[in-house]
């Protein structure tokens, strides 16, 4: 029984370690030797799997959505009538897919007029949210805040094409800031991110992070 429990706890980690190490060995190999060719072929094969692996998960996801919404409607929790809208929309979209999948004519209509409306509008309202964030976040409290504000102002002036005529040469300053101090600070963060990535992989393999799950 304990062996079964051990397998149950660790089988995913074993798979993770095997695939990771295999791909890490295969990645830098040139295809000039037979071994290199074999490994590279397997690398390409494996690399193409990730989308397919995640594809079935959507069924569970839709199941959870349906379950949550039906429960809300049955229990009549707060604002339950909106959940009926959700369920109706789900039924319409799933039904529309029976005519030619997601590229079919009915789904194309739905995605053009319904989903595209929501997605573009969501990005659009961020313009408004950004303006209010600017209004509230930039305060000349100390040197750091002042630097943050001034560099932001210069870039804002560069992004609005009219400023080039009001303040000639602003684009040179902006591009210099983007190319030099901005890039340098980003590179400094890159170093940490690159190292952090490797450390995270090591921790996942040791099973200490349980992919982070406790």
């Amino acid at each position, binding site marked *: 029984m304990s062996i079964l429990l051990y397998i*149950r706890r660790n089988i*995913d980690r074993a*798979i*993770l370690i*095997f695939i*990771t190490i*295999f*791909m*890490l060995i295969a990645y830098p190999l040139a295809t000039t030797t037979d071994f290199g060719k074999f490994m590279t072929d397997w*690398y390409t*094969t*494996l690399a*193409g799997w990730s*989308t*397919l*692996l995640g*594809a*079935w*998960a*959507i*069924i569970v996801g*839709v*199941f959870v959505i349906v379950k949550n919404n039906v429960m809300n409607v049955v229990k009549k929790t707060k604002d339950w009538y909106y959940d009926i*809208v*959700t369920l109706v*929309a*789900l*039924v319409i*979209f*799933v039904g529309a*897919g029976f005519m030619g*999948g*997601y590229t079919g004519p009915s*789904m194309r209509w*739905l995605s*053009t*007029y319904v989903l595209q*409306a*929501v997605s573009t509008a969501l*990005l*659009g309202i*961020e*313009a408004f949210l*950004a303006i209010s964030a*600017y209004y509230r976040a930039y305060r000349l409290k100390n040197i750091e805040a002042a*630097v943050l504000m001034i560099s*932001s102002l210069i*870039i804002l002036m560069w992004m609005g094409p009219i400023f080039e005529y009001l303040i000639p040469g602003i684009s040179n300053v902006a591009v210099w800031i983007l190319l*030099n101090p*901005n*890039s*340098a*600070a*980003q590179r*400094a963060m890159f170093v*940490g991110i*690159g*190292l952090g*990535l490797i450390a995270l*992989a090591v921790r996942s393999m040791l099973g200490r992070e349980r992919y982070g799950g406790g």
Partner: protein
Amino acid sequence: MVSTDPGMWVYALLVIAIYSFVFKHNPAFRVAQAIAVGGGAGYALWVSIDYIQRLGISRVQAGHYIVLIPLLAGLLYLFQIYPRLSWLSRIPVAMALGIAYGTTLIPGVAAYIIAPITQTVQPFWTPNPVDNFSVIVNFILMFCGVAFFIFTSDKFVKGRYGFIGRIGRIGLMIAFGSACGTLLGAKVTTAIGNIIDLLSKWLGIPLGT
């Protein structure tokens, strides 16, 4: 001339419903969001079915039986619904995560560790004084920035060498500030695109160009 296309009406009403959120949270936004949740899930379902068909089943039919491995491993996700066997559903995640690590770690070293060094280490004695100044600024900010992020000691954050961390912080602030400045451009473009759609396609008002 106001549009007679029902699709345009749906589009316009949804756009207005979402935009109304910025002024006040209201039932119209709730309805639009409820439609988006149901619709998005339905759409994602069909996209995934297309993946399974195109990347999985059709390749198996073409004789690539190796594709059966991810296809069947992905099916283990369904055990998530049955709590006692839900540990099986971790297997496809582990496989995908292994692939993610395997594909990103070595290119990550190239892009995140080597490339920053090669881009910073540049000659600083060229005849162009602006370039020389830029190289020196780059070097100082990169050096101080990396020093600022050291976890094990606060030598570079406090005390005699504290100024190094301070310079690193200021460099970070420049980077954050300049990126915040670029935010508005993208968002305003989308907002204005929506407004053009509403005015010209839905309400049919001729716009000057």
